[in-house]
Every structure is written in C-alpha cells, then in structure tokens.
C-alpha cells in the first residue's frame, strides 16, 4: 500500500516538474515571473524602510496611482497626446525617407549627399536640438515633432537606403524581365525586397522617437490644455507625487513593450517571418 502511495507521489512530482519546465520554456511566462520578482524585491526594499517612504513609495501606492489615473481618464489622455505626436513624427519621417531614398536610387550624387548627411546628423541627439527648435519654431507641438523627425529620419534613411541598395540583382533582373518600370518596379520589387531593412528602420526610428518625445515633452511642458506622458512625469515631480511618477514610468515601459511585442512582432510575423526573409 505504502509502495503504491510512493509511486503515485513520484508520478505527481514528475508531472509537476514537467509542467514547470514546459512553462519555463515559454518566454512570456518567464517574463511575468521576472516582473513578479522585481515587484517582490521592490516591496521588500520598501518594508525594510532603508529609503525615505516619500521618495520610495510602496507597490500598493504605485498601483493605486496607476489605477486612479487610468480610471479618471487622465492617463489615456496623456497617452493619446504622446502617441498622436509620435504618429505624426513617424508618418512625416517615413514619407521624407521614402522620397529621399528614391531620389538617392535615381542619382549617385544625391545618394552620396544623403549618406554624408546621415553620418553628420545621426550621431546628434535630438535633445541637443531643443534650444534651436525653441528659437526656430517656438514652444509647441511643432517643435516636439521637429525633434522627433530628427531622431527618426536618419536611422530610418540609413536602413531604407541600405535595404534598397542591397536588393539582390536577381530580383532586379526579374522585375525587368516581367516588364516592370518606374513606380511599378519600386512597389513590385524594391519595396517588398527591402521590407526586412525597412522594418529595422521603423523599429530603430520608433525607439529613438519615443525617447526624444519624452525628453522634449519634459522641456516644453503643456501645449494648451493637453500634455503628454513626459510632462506628466515632470509635473508629478513638482508635486512630489512619487507614486504617480512611477505609475507614469510604468506606462512608458508598457507602451514600449506593447509596441515592440504586439505591433512590430505582429508585422514581422505576417511579413518577413512568414516569407522566410527575417534578418
């Protein structure tokens, strides 16, 4: 009887180990476990009272602020404002990048001019242009968009021009053999063949723009009655609303993760991964 019991227990343990091992292999489950670990460590640090509570809020206070801002709609309004600006920045930059790339493909001299501009301007952080943006454009959404375009356009151009230039000669030959010319050649061959590089350009552009946006918002503050997440963090600092600040930082992280894992990964899954073209 005892032997049978031991055998059952053994099987249960084996099954539990098997389930845990399978779950551990799933990236998202590991991610959630890491988040819980950080939360636990945070709470331990809070309970230990080694840091002044006014500067180091508890997880409960941060969660409370997060839910408060979420439920009263202020958080969605800040997110909407910031995402609207970033969307403008991405659309304008992508359009400029595409036009400049096509011109660069048409003329070697223009390509050399654009690549020189990339090497000059790409290392320049967007935030360094803030004083210039204030003097040239003034304080407002336009200045933030200007900073973002600067942050997005150079890495995007670098990748798109690189992608177009490295389209294998065989695809070009095929395009010519099919009788494709001008814009049909661009849309039928060059753009789809460059999608892996275009996507890399968008991803780099997005991450640079996100950083630039938050920094620029902190400097420019509110435009009219609305403002974004960057200025929200700055305001909460003024009121010493530490829990609120951490809640806003959390929002920035969540948006970053959602865009990277949901939007870009989905685009990759239905394009380059599906086509076997992933870089």
């Amino acid at each position, binding site marked *: 009887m005892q032997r049978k019991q031991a055998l059952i227990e053994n099987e249960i343990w084996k099954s539990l180990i098997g389930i845990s091992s399978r779950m551990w292999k799933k990236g998202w489950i590991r991610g959630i476990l890491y988040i819980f670990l950080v939360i636990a460590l945070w709470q331990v640090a809070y309970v230990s009272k080694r840091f002044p509570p006014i500067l180091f809020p508890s997880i409960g206070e941060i969660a409370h602020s997060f839910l408060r801002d979420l439920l009263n709609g202020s958080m969605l309004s800040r997110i909407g404002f910031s995402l609207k600006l970033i969307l403008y920045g991405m659309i304008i930059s992508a359009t400029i990048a595409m036009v400049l790339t096509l011109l660069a493909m048409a003329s070697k001299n223009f390509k050399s001019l654009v690549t020189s501009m990339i090497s000059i301007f790409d290392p320049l952080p967007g935030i360094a242009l803030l004083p210039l943006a204030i003097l040239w454009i003034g304080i407002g959404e336009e200045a933030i968009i200007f900073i973002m375009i600067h942050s997005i356009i150079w890495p995007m151009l670098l990748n798109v021009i690189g992608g177009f230039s490295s389209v294998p000669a065989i695809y070009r030959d095929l395009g010519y*053999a099919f009788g494709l010319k001008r814009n049909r050649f661009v849309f039928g061959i060059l753009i789809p063949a460059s999608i892996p590089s275009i996507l890399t350009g968008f991803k780099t552009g997005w991450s640079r723009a996100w950083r630039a946006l938050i920094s620029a918002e902190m400097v420019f503050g509110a435009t009219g009655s609305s403002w974004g997440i960057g200025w929200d963090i700055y305001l909460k600092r003024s009121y010493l609303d530490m829990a609120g600040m951490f809640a806003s930082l959390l929002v920035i992280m969540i948006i970053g993760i959602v865009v990277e894992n949901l939007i870009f990964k989905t685009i990759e899954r239905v394009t380059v991964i*599906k086509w*076997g073209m992933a870089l």
Partner: protein
Amino acid sequence: MTDFLCVNNLTQHFISGDQKLEAYSKVSFSLKKGEFLSITGPSGCGKTTLLRTIGGFLPPTSGTISIAGKDIKEPGTHCGMVFQTFDQLLPWKTILGNVMYPLIINHKFTNRVETQHHARKYLDMVGLDKFKDYYPYQLSGGMKQRVAIARALAMEPSLILMDEPFASVDADTRVMLQRELKSIWYKSGITVLFVTHSIIEAISLSTRFLVMGKSKPSIRLFEENSIHSEPDKLITPENTGYSEWWSRLSHLIREGNDSSAHE
C-alpha cells in the same frame, strides 16, 4: 521557314580600369522557331553574358539581336528567362503568386480566376500544384527551379532563355527536370536557348549545339544535332551517334579552354 532569332555580329567588351575584357566577339547565328539550342563551352567563354545580352539585360558593345523581326534593346516579356540561382522566386509571394505575378502585371487575362487557372495549369505541368500555397523558402532547390520554369512558360513566350537552370540540383532531380523540360518544349513548340556546362545535358536535350571558346573565334561550332530519337524524349547513350557527338563536343570544349590556341 524564316529565321526566328537572329544574332548579328554581336560583340561584348567590358572595361575594367585600363583593361578591355572581351567576353565574346563577332557572334552571329540564327535559329528557326521551335529549335532547342544548347550553348556550351569552357568556364569564362561568355555563355552567360551572351544569353543575358540576347535577353536584353546587357546592351551589346556592337551588333544586333532580333526576335521575330523585332530588335531587342532591353529585357521584357518577349522572352522568358530562367536563371541558374535557386533564389529566383520572389520570397514574399506564394508559389502560385510567383507564377501569377507576371501574368497579372502584363494583363494576360481579364480576371483573376482565369489568371489563377492558367498559372495552376503550368504548376501542374511541373508537378507542383499541390504546393501552390507554399512560400519559396519552404521548397527544395529543385522544386524552386521547377516553379521558375513554370513561371517563365506560363507567360507563353515564343523564346525561353535558360542559364544552367539545373546546375545546382542533384543528379536524379536533374534528369527528372531534363525529361520534363524536353516534354514541355515538344508540346509547346517554344524556342529554347539553354546554357550548360554539361556535354551530356547538351546532347540529351538539344536539336542544335553552339560551342563557344575563350579566344577568337568565339563560336567554335554551330550545328544541328544529327542524332535521331523520339523528339519528346531525352537522347541517351543508346542512341546512335551519341558517343561521336560526345567526343566531338568534349574535344571542342577542351580546345576552347586554351585561350592562346587561336590568338
């Protein structure tokens, strides 16, 4: 029968630094419609360059090419092209999408259903209709080459140019593809220009041989294949005259490899 393809005094030079490299010089020949010409010769004799020039991918240094009386200045749908590389399918399109694409952009049919039906007929001809929804990376090298052949044939060009299309496939697949090609060629009545390194492949498939050499004269032989056989079947060593042609072509290719022999 009048000549279908006329290559007249074609010369191709490339300039590299101060040096002038001659790919081939004063190449002239003509073909009747429906012939199967194998172009062979040693590596570097200009076979692929000649084929690309005939396809309009390279402007010749001098000379003219005409297909069905029309001068060829640029690539287009006047001839189908099958390249040597496996990666000649567009990776962002399915197998069916690859075959349909040139038909769609050239408005070969008035609606999508007809286009699809036509494309599937050619995919079926190369035995790949059941893989129509696959993407190129999911197929083997031999299968990709068959799709490329189906795509070129589906356009129903009067001339098809093939640049060592079976060079990178294993021996069994190669023979199978050769059989398919010969049968398709016979059924469709298409004219084929087929670049190959393999003497066996040239003899098995063609109705005419063109042997090129590295030095002048660029054309060492342009002759009809005199071996009698069933026209839709591969010519094999059992056919009378096979070994004589093998010795002759192999001798000419060896001779053509010696760049100083005729200079």
